[in-house]
């Protein structure tokens, strides 16, 4: 099949089976999204980068990019939970045959939602400080402790967690990677409201939770190196998805600025032009990364800096949008006068998380400085932090 045919077929599928408007009710929304993911999987359109043996599409890199672009344009629901990008590659690389067989397909089909239980109240950036313990008793671990800021924790079926199996002082040398059944006795999940007013993440308490040793991924006390596994290539293709999405968002913002007559102001025009420039550079960088991968099998340094580029962009963009709304920027999402159902104001709040979640911007800068530029390590930091 030719690439263009592939694009056309995928697009046709996404348009024809589009699940329609997002239900407001949480429970309905979950069912709506699960139904969509199952349909995608059953039609053979799930997991663009995944091996076929786990139900994926095993696409060439060029096709992955097409997939991501079309997916972004189609405005269909994305994956549920946070397992796909992070836990799945870890399983593929380090999991046992049974673990792969048991867990990968249901994750991909959306039948089992996965959430990441790494962070703890006293272990955020300093993940090696984590204290949730797993004590071995025969062929089970007994897990006790607390996790926090767990995205999608409230809808999760499986929690991929880091737990302490070594001594309290063992830092990153005493950590194991454990898959915990979110419905097991002793697991308490409590939604945490975030500053947008939504409950996007949760806190999770473990009280004598029994986890089979067979659900440990990798060696006992050997969990730390697994933290960083992710699909570099998939991320690169995902960058095109993001560039496509922000192209659309910026066009909508420019439209809004025109409607409000704001583009007569040269300062507004200059700011919009700045975003235009950045959204284009975002795309150029994605294309460059792809060209590098196709030519050399490796993404260059730009793929590592592009995340910082994007998060700064999205924060600036949304804050500017709020400024553009003037006094309407003071209205919450539920007010009938809110402009475009409050999306810009919500985005302004939501993107505060961009420089915190999945490793803060400061930690990313440390990583870039040490790993890309070869600057000497900060003596206080573990060898490979998030």
């Amino acid at each position, binding site marked *: 099949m030719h690439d263009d045919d592939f694009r056309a077929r995928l697009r046709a599928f996404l348009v024809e089976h589009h699940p329609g408007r997002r239900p407001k009710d949480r429970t309905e929304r979950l069912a709506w999204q699960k139904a969509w993911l199952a349909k995608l999987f059953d039609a053979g359109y799930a997991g663009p980068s995944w091996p076929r043996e786990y139900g994926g599409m095993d696409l060439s890199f060029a096709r992955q990019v097409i997939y991501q672009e079309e997916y972004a344009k189609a405005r269909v629901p994305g994956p549920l939970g946070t397992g796909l990008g992070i836990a799945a590659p870890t399983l593929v690389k380090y999991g046992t045959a049974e673990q792969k067989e048991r867990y990968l397909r249901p994750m991909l089909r959306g039948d089992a939602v996965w959430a990441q239980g790494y962070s703890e109240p006293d272990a955020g950036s300093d993940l090696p400080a984590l204290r949730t313990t797993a004590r071995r008793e025969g062929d089970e671990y007994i897990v006790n402790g607390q996790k926090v800021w767990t995205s999608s924790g409230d809808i999760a079926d499986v929690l991929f967690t880091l737990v302490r199996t070594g001594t309290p002082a063992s830092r990153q040398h005493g950590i194991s990677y454990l898959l915990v059944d979110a419905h097991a006795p002793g697991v308490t999940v409590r939604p945490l409201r975030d500053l947008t007013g939504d409950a996007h993440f949760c806190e999770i308490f473990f009280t004598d939770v029994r986890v089979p040793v067979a659900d440990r991924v990798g060696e006992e006390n050997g969990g730390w190196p697994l933290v960083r596994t992710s699909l570099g290539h998939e991320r690169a293709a995902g960058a095109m998805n993001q560039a496509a999405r922000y192209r659309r968002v910026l066009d909508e913002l*420019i439209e809004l600025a025109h409607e409000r007559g704001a583009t007569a102001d040269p300062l507004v025009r200059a700011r*919009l032009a700045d975003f235009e420039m950045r959204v284009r550079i975002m795309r150029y960088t994605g294309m460059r990364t792809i060209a590098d991968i196709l030519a050399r099998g490796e993404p260059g340094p730009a793929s590592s800096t592009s995340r910082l580029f994007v998060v700064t962009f999205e924060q600036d963009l949304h804050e500017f949008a709020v400024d553009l709304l003037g006094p309407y920027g003071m209205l919450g999402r539920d007010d009938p006068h809110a402009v475009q159902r409050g999306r810009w104001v919500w985005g302004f709040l939501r993107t505060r998380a961009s420089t915190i979640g999945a490793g803060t911007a400061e930690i990313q800068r440390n990583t870039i400085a040490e790993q890309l530029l070869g600057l000497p390590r900060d003596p206080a930091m573990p060898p490979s932090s998030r």
Partner: protein
Amino acid sequence: MIAFTEEQEDLRAVVRRFLADRADVRARLDSGEGHDLAVWRQLADQLGLPGIAVPEEYGGSGGGPVELGIVLEEMGRVLLPSPFFATVALVGQALTASGDDAAKSRWLPGIADGSLTATLAVAEESGRATDLTTTATGGTLSGTKMFVVDGHTADLLLVVARTGLFAVEGTAPGVTRTRLETLDRTRRLARIDFDGAPAVPIGESPPRKALDLAVVALAAEQVGGAQACLDMAVGHAKVRVQFDRPIGTFQAIKHKCADMLLAIEAARSAVYHAASAGDELPVAASVAGAYCSVAFTHAAKENIQIHGGVGYTWEHDAHRYLKRAKSSEQLFGAPAAHRARLADLVGI
């Protein structure tokens, strides 16, 4: 979008090696020309670089903006004072793109073999490339051009006038050239007064494309300059010890370096795209023009900061990069002007 071919990577390596051996910037700054003619001859005779973006039928090697960009990036790294930028990047490209066969066969072979130097005269006393007052009538040109790169030495002057692009011999009657005192002493600028100087019209279309190509060429040079600043800063941060630690272990320093890299990588994306943009050149040139000069100035400032007192010292090269960066911001339109143009082009 490009990933560089092996030939292109080889070109980069050859140019880098050549420049590393010869580009002692300081030695040539105070000569009358502002550059070293021997190096220019070597560039031409040994490497054939002046012909890099000239079509083969005119004696060049038939490359394009991509190859040229590679060379300029390397020259930007060492702040090479050289007629290369004006002759090859400004005029060579402008002539090649002009669609004027007579002009091409008259001047391109000389550019390609390095026997002819040239420059592009754009801005006027207003400092802008718009509202031009230079006019051509009956085969002669009158007006004043400012900030002309290497304008005091170039053999051939390509002049952007109200009605199009014109060629004037540098030593023609009616041409008065005055060297300007420049902030960036690695790039000489001149004022040129034309008083009924004999002029030849080039092509028929307005010279906008020549300007866009100039912007992209400059942006490539800026990426090289910014990268040199980052390299210097990182090198220093690894060896300079304070409080018993290399300063590179301090996050304040690490983060500055990481942010420099971010800006440089984004600038690279903008330039590499623009160099292969085709029909999208006007937009891509505006993006590159708006982003790259800011990135370079940022890197140049941070480099001085990371070097501390050493960075503020005349003997250290850091200040030369700052001066090149700040001057380059204005050379073919300030970042704000590029953003304004981008806004126009995309309908903001």
